[in-house]
């Protein structure tokens, strides 16, 4: 078993954990955490499986770099929305 395969399998479990978490958890912040786990899982699968034979493949590296940036952008937007929702709920005049 190669390192790539170990991390790919870890990625599978992280993805599944995150997906179930987004559906099952109630708190918005937890849903956002769960989505990030799901994303990290997919990234690990991508790089891990491409390198299951042991070599290094720069193509998925570049894809995951893109993915990480997309994911932080989405997380920031989600957090901003969550904050706004709470601000509106707490103080309806802000609407």
């Amino acid at each position, binding site marked *: 078993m190669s390192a790539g395969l170990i991390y790919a399998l870890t990625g599978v479990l992280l993805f599944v954990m995150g997906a179930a978490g987004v559906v099952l958890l109630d708190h918005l912040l937890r849903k956002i955490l769960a989505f990030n786990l799901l994303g990290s899982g997919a990234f690990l699968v991508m790089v891990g499986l491409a390198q299951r034979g042991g070599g290094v493949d720069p193509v998925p590296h570049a894809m995951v770099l893109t993915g*990480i940036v997309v994911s932080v952008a989405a997380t920031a937007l989600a957090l*901003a929305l969550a904050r706004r929702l709470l601000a509106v709920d707490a103080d309806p005049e802000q609407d």
Partner: protein
Amino acid sequence: MAKALPRLLVVLLALLLAAALFAAVFDLPQPAVDLPAQVAANLAQTGVEHPVTAVLLNYRGYDTLLEIAVLLLALLGVLAIAGKPATRTAERVDPVLQMLARIAVPLMILVAGYLLWAGAHRPGGAFQAGAVLAAAAVLLNLAGLLPAWSTPGKLLRLGLSAGFLVFLAVAAGLLAGGELLRYPPQLAGGLILLIEAGLTGSIGLILAGLFLLTSERGRSR
């Protein structure tokens, strides 16, 4: 109680998916296409020596162009929902944190410069450099040395979009003379460095903005 059954179903589905994926992982054939070999074979024409940078800014540079648009878009989204800035009472600022920030921030700017320059030959590049710049801005904010932002002015908007605009201008310029994002090999190194420099600044500002636009720490009224 009524929710227990669907929840159980979700967990079961998740486990089933995990099991199927495990089985799939152990049953993979040898890929028909050997992309790493092609990446290496054409590296000399890309203008950079580091294969990841070659993929990111030359072979698949179009992905990166769209990705910067994603970042800019997230910032736009945050701007679009911003309400009236909430006011906060004066923050206690930790003097140790403040001293740390004064020492660390110049260092971080140096590191960002190095990462940008290093990207052509070894690990590093615009994303990492921009992220370090953003981290420096966040640290300054936490130390009470940089106020949070409200609506950005014209100059800041220019800074935020400059990286994307430079990238797009290079793309359009190359397009006018040939094909979208097709660098002439002798110019590729210079153009990629130009793009990366623009991206570093804008990525730094955008990532910092995602924090500073939502944070209420020391927001000026």
